[in-house]
């Protein structure tokens, strides 16, 4: 589980890419450039990247309405994502899915999902496929603290235990489901204990610390690959923006977001840790920052200038064959 230099650089690059992708979207949405509902992942980067760094390209993930981070962490093409979110031809889904349905099956990214709790049953299925193929793949079901109250999620956890399916249920606990606090909506308040009661190991970790996330995930992945069945991981993290863009966040504490950005920022943590351990130099990280910003800028330009999806796209892909 020792991370080499390449891995650390990739991890930082991905976290930074997610951050800048979302910061830029925040601006673009404000300018009215982006159609539809968009849920930004800014603040939660260490979670997506820590989890996906423990996976291979062949492993599966199912995502949520807040899916950009998971996409980038799983290696999806960033300019293609931007086009998708702009609803343009050449987007990851040819502009037909948008932010809430962004997917790339070739990367094992089985889709963002507009249905809270829609993903975990899919992950159980993908895990069964992996089990049957004996290919050692695992499936990760991302979800939020709010999703853990949805019946489908409980069903999926129980079924994964019953079938010993190599699934990892990741709960990103950012404290809110829309405008409701986790302390209100989650009976017992303890998501992990609920998972554990279905008969699977359940670990809690600091989701703003890439290394904690990565380690917890590696353990769960190893168990899953070795036939040990499902695990549950709960990561405490913070959401920097509103539930969806355009939402005034009046339910948040005074100065809460500023404080979180100040004290809990995963990029700052990462920089400090790799700096202290002399693993990556600030200069190298700064270089990456510049490259990331260039990528985001060119992605936005690419998306803006991309053509609209052709009219006939309305009618295609309903069936594979009729």
């Amino acid at each position, binding site marked *: 589980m020792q991370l080499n230099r390449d891995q650390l650089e990739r991890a930082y690059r991905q976290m930074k890419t997610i951050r800048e992708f979302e910061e830029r979207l925040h601006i673009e949405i404000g300018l009215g450039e982006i159609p539809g509902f968009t849920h930004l992942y800014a603040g939660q980067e260490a979670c997506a990247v820590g989890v996906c760094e423990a996976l291979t390209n062949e492993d599966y993930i199912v995502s949520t309405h807040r899916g950009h981070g998971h996409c980038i962490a799983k290696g999806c093409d960033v300019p293609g994502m931007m086009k998708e979110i702009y609803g343009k031809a050449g987007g990851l889904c040819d502009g037909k899915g948008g932010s809430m349905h962004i997917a790339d099956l070739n990367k094992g990214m089985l889709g963002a999902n507009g*249905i809270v709790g829609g993903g975990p049953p899919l992950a159980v299925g993908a895990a069964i496929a992996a089990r049957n193929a004996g290919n050692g793949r695992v499936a990760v079901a991302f979800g939020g603290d709010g999703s853990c109250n949805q019946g489908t999620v409980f069903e999926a956890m129980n079924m994964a235990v019953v079938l010993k399916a190599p699934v990892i249920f990741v709960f990103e606990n950012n404290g809110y489901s*829309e*405008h409701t606090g986790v302390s209100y*909506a*989650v009976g017992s308040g303890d998501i992990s204990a609920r998972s554990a009661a279905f008969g699977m190991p359940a670990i809690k970790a600091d989701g703003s610390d890439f290394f904690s996330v990565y380690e917890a995930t590696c353990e769960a992945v190893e168990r899953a690959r070795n036939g040990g069945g499902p695990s549950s991981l709960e990561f405490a993290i913070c959401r920097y923006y509103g539930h969806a863009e355009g939402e005034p966040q009046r*339910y948040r*504490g005074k100065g809460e977001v500023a404080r979180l950005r100040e004290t809990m920022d995963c990029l700052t943590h990462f920089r400090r840790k790799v700096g202290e351990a002399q693993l990556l130099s600030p200069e190298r990280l700064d270089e990456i920052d510049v490259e990331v910003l260039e990528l985001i800028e060119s992605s936005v330009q690419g998306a803006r200038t991309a053509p609209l999806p052709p009219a006939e*796209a309305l009618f295609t892909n309903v069936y594979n064959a009729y």
Partner: protein
Amino acid sequence: MSIKSYRDAINECLHQEMERDVNVVVFGEDVVGGSGTEGGKEAIGGVFSLTAGLWGKYGDNRVFDTPISESAIVGAAAGAALAGLRPVVEIMFSDFFGLCLDQMYNQAAKFNYMFGGGAKTPMVVRTTTGAGMSAAAQHSQSNYNWVTNIPGMKVLLPSNPYDAKGLLAAAIRGEDPVVFYENKLLYGIKGEVPDDTYVIPLGKGNLTRQGKDATIVAFSRMVHIANAVADRLAADGITCDVIDPRTTSPLDEEMILESVQETGRLIVVDECNPRCGLARDIAGLVASQAFEFLDAPIKLVTPPHTPIPFAPNLEHAYLPNEAKVEAAVREALGGR
């Protein structure tokens, strides 16, 4: 009487009905907003602000947030209704009905029948419907045809602020389970709405335009399209009846059949996907019960048999619009 938005008309109705009857309760995801947060309750007042101010007036027991548990929300409404309350619950998007339809289909709608009478289940499921906001495939759908299919469920589709208030009041005061579909694109439209409470009887359509050449039946937001087309055609000397049935179950069959008997031509405009949707339902009604009055093929204007695409240009092509409806009416009139 004053000018109010569709949103405000609904909110006012909720306030007045809660005031009128202590048994009316409101719950759902984020209908208060802010539960369990530092900002505190009603920090937000409902995702689409339909329930704003209710908690402040009626308190914790009558207005409360729930976890994200659609089945339990609808089921709790049904159970509470059996036990004497009149719950008005919110399912944020009707697209989520695939998670909670059982509680409407097998429970609430059937109690009275299965139990041989005596079961009152006065509950309202408020929900949103309709495309046009680039909300993509899972947040834009029209599925009132499913619920219309269920015996025992009443299904309401207000197309304007006046109807929204009056139909909702009727739903809340009735004894049967109701699904009340609010069209997201209509929240901002305005119209005359009495300040006092009033009730629109369920099953009575609204003849929004009168004419003699064709009958246009349209649902929810489509009513506005139909009206606009009727107005434009009137300038060309073609006049249409436009019928807004307002409720798909019960349905004002009489109004539709009588109109077709006069005009001999039917155009149905509906936002459901075409197969087993409301357009074919109305067409089937007329083709079986007023066939001899029909002078031309029935014209159906619906989206195609595809999911709802995200890209705005595709979504626009997906939806019925004035041009499509006008073309359909002219075709029904043999190309006039």
